[in-house]
C-alpha cells in the first residue's frame, strides 16, 4: 500500500518534471483564476466593511416639544436606555443645541446674535446596536420612543438610510452575480487548461490502458499531479493577491473620497487564506478528474 502510494507520488513529481511547460501553464492558469476571484471578493469585503463604518454614524434624534423638567429627565433616559435596540442615549439641551449650531456656523456665527438661546428644541440622540441599524430596526425604536416622549419630529436621516440600504442590496446582488460569473469563468478556464495538458499526454494514457493498468493506477498519479499543481497555484494566487492588495488595491481604496478616514482595510484572514489554497487543490483534483473521465477509456 505504502509502496504503491510512494510510487504514485514519485510518478506525479516525475511527470511534472517531464512536462515543465504543461505543468507551468496549469499552475499559472489556476493562480491567475484564483487570484482574480479572490481579488474580487477582497474588494467586496472591504466595501462592505466601509458600509458598516458608514452605518455606525446612524443615529435616531427625537426633537422634544417640551424640555423635560429635572425630575422627569432621569426616568426618561433610564427608560430609553432599556430599549433593546439602544446602546447609548444622550440628552441635548436647548442651549447645547444652540452652541452646536454656532460652532457649525463657524465664522458666520454672529448671524445668531440676538436670537434667543432657547429657540432650538431639546433632543434625545440614540445610538443603536449594529443589528438594528436598518429601516425596520429604526422604525421599531421610533415606535417605542413615541410612547415615551412628546415629539412631533423624530429624525433618523430617512432619505440617507433608504439610499444606503439600496446601495447595500445592490452591492450584494452585483457581488453575488459577478462573483458567481467570475468563479464559473475561472472553473471553465482551469478545466480547459487541464484538459489540454492531459490531451497532450493522451498517448501516455492510451499506452497505460494497453499494458493493463487499472483505472485507479492511471488516474491517481494524474489526480495527485492536479492536487500538487492546485496547491502551487493556490499559494501563488495568495502571493499575487497579497501583492495586488498592498501595491494597488489598498492605495486606491484609501484614496477613494467616500472612504471613512482612518479605516483599516482588511486582507484575507488565516481561514480564508487556507480556503483559497484548498480551493486550488480542489480545482486541480476535480479539473483533472473530469478531463480524465473523458480521456481514459478502457
Amino acid at each position, binding site marked *: 500500500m505504502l509502496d504503491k502510494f510512494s510510487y504514485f507520488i514519485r510518478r506525479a513529481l516525475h511527470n511534472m518534471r*517531464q*512536462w515543465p511547460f504543461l505543468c507551468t501553464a496549469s499552475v499559472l492558469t489556476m493562480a491567475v483564476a484564483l487570484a482574480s476571484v479572490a481579488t474580487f471578493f477582497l474588494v467586496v469585503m472591504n466595501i462592505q466593511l466601509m458600509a458598516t463604518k458608514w452605518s455606525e454614524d446612524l443615529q435616531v434624534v427625537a426633537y422634544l416639544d417640551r424640555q423635560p423638567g429635572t425630575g422627569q429627565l432621569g426616568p426618561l433616559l433610564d427608560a430609553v436606555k432599556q430599549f433593546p435596540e439602544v446602546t447609548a442615549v444622550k440628552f441635548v439641551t436647548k442651549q447645547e443645541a444652540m452652541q452646536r449650531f454656532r460652532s457649525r456656523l463657524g465664522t458666520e456665527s454672529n448671524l445668531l446674535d440676538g436670537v434667543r438661546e432657547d429657540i432650538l428644541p431639546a433632543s434625545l440622540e440614540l445610538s443603536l446596536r449594529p443589528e438594528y441599524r436598518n429601516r425596520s430596526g429604526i422604525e421599531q425604536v421610533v415606535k417605542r420612543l413615541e410612547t415615551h416622549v412628546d415629539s412631533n419630529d423624530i429624525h433618523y436621516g430617512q432619505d440617507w438610510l433608504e439610499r444606503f440600504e439600496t446601495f447595500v442590496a445592490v452591492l450584494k446582488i452585483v457581488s453575488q452575480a459577478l462573483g458567481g460569473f467570475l468563479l464559473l469563468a475561472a472553473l471553465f478556464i482551469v478545466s480547459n487548461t487541464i484538459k489540454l495538458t492531459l490531451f497532450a499526454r493522451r498517448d501516455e494514457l492510451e499506452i*497505460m490502458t494497453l499494458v*493493463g*493498468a487499472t483505472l485507479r493506477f492511471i488516474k491517481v498519479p494524474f489526480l495527485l499531479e492536479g492536487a500538487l499543481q492546485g496547491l502551487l497555484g493556490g499559494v501563488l494566487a495568495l502571493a499575487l493577491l497579497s501583492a495586488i492588495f498592498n501595491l494597488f488595491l489598498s492605495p486606491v481604496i484609501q484614496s477613494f473620497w467616500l472612504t471613512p478616514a482612518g479605516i483599516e482595510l482588511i486582507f484575507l484572514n488565516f481561514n480564508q487564506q487556507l480556503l483559497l489554497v484548498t480551493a486550488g487543490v480542489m480545482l486541480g483534483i476535480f479539473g483533472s478528474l473530469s478531463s480524465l473521465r473523458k480521456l481514459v477509456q478502457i
Partner: protein
Amino acid sequence: MVYPIFSGSPMIQLYNVSKSYQKENSALKDISVQIGKGEFVYVTGASGAGKTTFLRLLYSAERATRGQILIDGQNISRISRLKIPYLRRKIGVVFQDYKLLNSRTVYENVAFALEAQGKKRYEVSKKVYKALKEVGLEHRLQRTPLELSGGEQQRIAIARALVVDPLILLADEPSGNLDQEVALEIMELFRQANARGTTVLLATHDHSLYHRFPRRVLTLEQGRLVKDHQPETL
C-alpha cells in the same frame, strides 16, 4: 469454406463473431476460429480486410457486436470494464507505429508495463534488463526512443510487450515501417517468444514473411475469414 486446422487445447476461440461500426457496414462478419496454446498464426488480408479489428477484439479495445470470444477459457464478449486491465496483462501488443513514450527513456518505456501491473521495483529492474537483453538493446537503457532507429524502437516495443510474460502476443503490422532486413530481425524475436510458449498472432499483408517463416495463416477479405491454411515454404 474454412476448415479448422487446429487441434489441441485452445488459447483463443471465436464463435460467429461480427463487428460493425455502422448498421450496413461490418468490419468483421461471422468469424469462427480457434487458435491453440503456443501457436504462431498470421492474420492477413488487404488493407481494410479487418485485421486490426480482429486483433482489437482480442484485447478488448473493441467489443464484438455479435458472437463469443474466449481467451484462455475466459469469455470476454461481455467482460466488465473493470476486468479488462487484468485481461490485458495476459496479452502483449505490438503496433506498427511502436506507441512508445518519447519523453521517457528506453528503460522507463519497458518498465512502464510492469509498473502498471503494480510490480515491485527490484522485480521491475531485473525483468526490464532481461527483456531488453533478449531484444539486444540492453546497452541503450538511458536513451529516449527518438534517439534510436525504427528497428530499435520496434524492438523496445516488443520488449515492453514481452516483459510481462504474456500468454498471447498480438502484433499489428509490426514490420510495416521497417525495411526487409530489420523486419526479419523482428520476426526472429517473435519466433523466439513463440518458442518459449507464447501464442503469437501477427497481422500483416506482407506475403514474403509467411513464406519465409511458414505458419498457419488466417486470410480475411472484407471482414470474412476466407481461408485458414498452412502455406508452403518458399
